[in-house]
């Protein structure tokens, strides 16, 4: 009954989406405020219906209702509760329902919090959002119904793919989807602005918090996915340039560019056409990612059961939204008047360069990801494009971004002083040199690592030069400095932290060159040296788990003879799926990690294993957390807070240029 209610709610949500997609636009055309005003309540009702649907599916999973195909294929009565819940989106149908849920959450949030927006823009934005949610609900109902029943129901399910039975599944997809789907709202804003002809600084102010929100979640989602791959695959790697990873990196790069160009549009009324284009691009790349991951054109751990029909449907959605929005863009964008002018060396100029480099690096990822697919489709020739390609293309294009980032913050709007900015960065550059010298002396090793940490340290210090320059103008007292620091706009602090976060991640990436890797057969009593630590295997044994059997190697990590950690790396065998997973034993010591994973059992009873010492590796993900924290600071800035901007109403109410 609950399941049928969920299915019915989803059908109702589709009907509401159609109404929300049509009525407000019709109202806009007729200039009827009553019709336009229907957009907000329908968006909220649509959210409520999809939420009911999602809760119904979750209930079926938690209660192990094996009359549902979806539950049979992805659940087992003995599965721990946390995985019963996360298993809801650990499959194709459920993950699409989560996608739609987040789509309508964003629609409802715009309806609830953007009351200060002009009515026509809000109506058009919500209508476009309903087009997207309608298309995806239709996709679910037509090709991927999670509520399909089976009669008679089997007694037991087939269990969730063991690789997915991990806390990562509870965190990574929701975060990533919030990011991916978050760009739907900036897309809707862009399309709405094109429909209404309201593309001005006020629009940029409305859209910026949403971009920031999506960007933060996408940053966290990618970082979490990377950490999950790192600890679950047992290879010690965290980024593989896998097409699925690239699919999430592309919207991130476009979204980062959008975040910066929207600033120029808001502050200087310039780059309007470009900002709108980026808003369309970011979501188009999100859609492309969904297509790549969900259509089955790629085989990876992320592709669930593939069905050609689904691929074609998503491709149609892709073509409709990307083609439609670009057509709208081509039709409306030429009506825009160019805005404020600026010298090439200025804050605007630096942000333009940032955008150029970000989109060019995005293009290298795009080509590297799609070229093999295109080649296979047209010539049946199968190739793979791996890390060497991306290191050679993405690396050099991204490098100038890292070098110029701190300098760009120091340039003034309209006309900047490059020499002055460079002088103010002397200290940061010196800090980079010192760090590189010290770490180079300690670790020696690859030049790339030394250069990497030098740039990273320069970046971290350089990111704060601007805010510190605003706090410490002359010799001032501590209390004045403190009150100035607090008085600075939060967005200034946010930018500093986000940029420093990039430096912190880079530091972790660069330090991978100093890592130690030992591949060997392990027996009880073995001692392995890994960097400054010793890893001792105490015992190996087989232990039962709730729905698996585990081979565990009890391992001690010692430093100068003292035990600092106990690790239990394991291999788990899941009988229901006849699959084995690797559970690495990881401990963070300082900023580095000792990582022990088992990869096989030998006939003589020894275990094949890998022991790694990875100095500074935790910084890779800490950097992402710092970036997201910077985003949060910016989001809390009064000027950008969602729903504030009331003071801007006077500006917004003026007709667009």
């Amino acid at each position, binding site marked *: 009954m609950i399941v049928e209610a969920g299915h019915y709610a989803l059908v109702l949500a589709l009907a509401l989406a159609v109404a929300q997609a049509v009525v407000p636009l019709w109202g806009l055309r007729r200039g009827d405020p009553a019709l336009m005003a229907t957009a907000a309540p329908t968006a909220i009702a649509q959210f409520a219906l999809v939420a009911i649907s999602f809760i119904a599916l979750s209930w079926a999973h938690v209660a192990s209702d094996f009359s549902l195909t979806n539950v049979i294929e992805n659940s087992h009565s003995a599965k721990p509760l946390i995985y019963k819940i996360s298993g809801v989106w650990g499959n194709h149908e459920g993950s699409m329902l989560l996608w739609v849920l987040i789509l309508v959450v964003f629609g409802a949030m715009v309806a609830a919090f953007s009351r200060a927006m002009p009515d026509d823009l809000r109506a058009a934005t919500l209508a476009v959002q309903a087009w997207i949610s309608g298309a995806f609900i239709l996709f679910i109902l037509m090709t991927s119904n999670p509520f399909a029943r089976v009669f008679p129901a089997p007694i037991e399910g087939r269990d969730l793919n063991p690789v997915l039975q991990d806390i990562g599944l509870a965190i990574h997809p929701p975060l990533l989807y919030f990011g991916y789907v978050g760009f739907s709202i900036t897309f809707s804003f862009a399309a709405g602005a094109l429909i209404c002809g309201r593309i001005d600084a006020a629009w940029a102010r409305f859209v910026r918090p949403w971009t920031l929100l999506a960007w933060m979640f996408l940053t966290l989602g990618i970082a979490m996915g990377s950490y999950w791959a790192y600890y679950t695959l047992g290879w010690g790697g965290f980024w593989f340039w896998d097409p699925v990873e690239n699919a999430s990196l592309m919207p991130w790069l476009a979204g980062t560019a959008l975040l910066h160009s929207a600033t120029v549009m808001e502050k200087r009324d310039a780059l309007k056409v470009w900002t709108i284009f980026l808003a369309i691009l970011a979501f188009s790349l999100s859609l492309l990612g969904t297509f790549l991951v969900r259509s089955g054109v790629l085989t990876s751990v992320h592709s669930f059961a593939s069905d050609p029909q689904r691929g074609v449907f998503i491709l149609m959605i892709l073509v409709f939204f990307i083609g439609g929005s670009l057509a709208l863009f081509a039709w409306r964008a030429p009506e825009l008047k160019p805005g404020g002018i600026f*010298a090439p060396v200025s804050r605007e100029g630096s942000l333009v360069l940032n955008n150029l480099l970000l989109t060019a690096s995005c293009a290298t990822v795009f080509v590297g990801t799609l070229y093999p697919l295109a080649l296979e489709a047209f010539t049946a020739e*199968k190739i793979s494009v791996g890390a060497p390609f991306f290191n050679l293309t993405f690396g050099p294009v991204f490098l100038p971004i890292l070098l110029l980032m701190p300098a760009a913050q120091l340039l003034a709007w309209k006309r900047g002083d490059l020499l002055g900015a460079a002088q103010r960065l002397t200290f940061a550059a010196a800090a980079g040199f010192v760090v590189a010298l010290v770490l180079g002396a300690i670790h020696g090793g690859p030049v790339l690592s030394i250069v990497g940490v030098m740039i990273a340290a320069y970046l971290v210090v350089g990111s704060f030069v601007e805010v510190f320059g605003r706090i410490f103008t002359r010799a001032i007292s501590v209390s004045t400095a403190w009150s100035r620091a607090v008085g600075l706009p939060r967005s200034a602090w946010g930018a500093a932290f986000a940029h420093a976060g990039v430096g912190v991640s880079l530091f972790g990436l660069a330090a991978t060159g100093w890592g130690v890797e030992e591949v060997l057969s392990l027996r009880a009593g073995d001692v392995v040296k890994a960097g400054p630590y010793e890893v001792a295997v105490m015992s190996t044994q087989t232990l039962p788990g709730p729905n698996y059997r585990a081979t565990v190697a009890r391992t001690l990590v010692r430093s100068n003879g003292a035990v600092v950690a106990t690790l239990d790396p394991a291999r788990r065998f899941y009988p229901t799926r006849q699959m084995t997973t690797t559970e690495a034993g990881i401990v963070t010591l300082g900023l580095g990690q000792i990582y022990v994973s088992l990869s096989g059992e030998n006939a003589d009873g020894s275990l094949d294993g890998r022991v790694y010492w990875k100095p500074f590796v935790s910084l890779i993900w800490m950097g992402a957390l710092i970036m997201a924290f910077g985003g949060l600071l910016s989001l809390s800035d009064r000027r950008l807070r969602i729903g504030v901007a009331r003071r801007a109403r006077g500006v917004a109410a003026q007709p667009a240029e």
Partner: protein
Amino acid sequence: MTRKGRRLTLIASALGVLGVAAALMAFAFRDNIVFFYGPSELAEKAPAPGARLRIGGLVKEGSVKRVGDRNISFVVTDTKKDVSVAYAGQLPDLFREGQGVVAEGVLVGPGQFRADSVLAKHDETYMPRDVADALKKQGVWNENKPQPAGDKK
């Protein structure tokens, strides 16, 4: 600088950045692409020894031999043609005789391959026969439905 001059600077720098990116990609594509062949395709195309390739197929039943501590040899087959693979390293969790496998490495001679990484393909919806039969009886299990295969990274 005039408005026109500024616009030209902008366009020139845009073209410059894109040009550099395109040149890098063209350069990287020349040396960093790895072709993928099945055993029959490999025999037919006969690339020169020394070429970096990925080969894929099934691990032939009874062909896996361990020499010494970590030297492994096995045969990749598509039931028509075979390629013998030498590999030094650890095999992935899902490597099994009769199952799919992808090996990346260098061709050393006709039908002779030296792998430096081995990925096992696995069937995500693999299940024990009795469960499969039970589901078949209930009409859930569709024989014709394309079965997914995923690379384990």
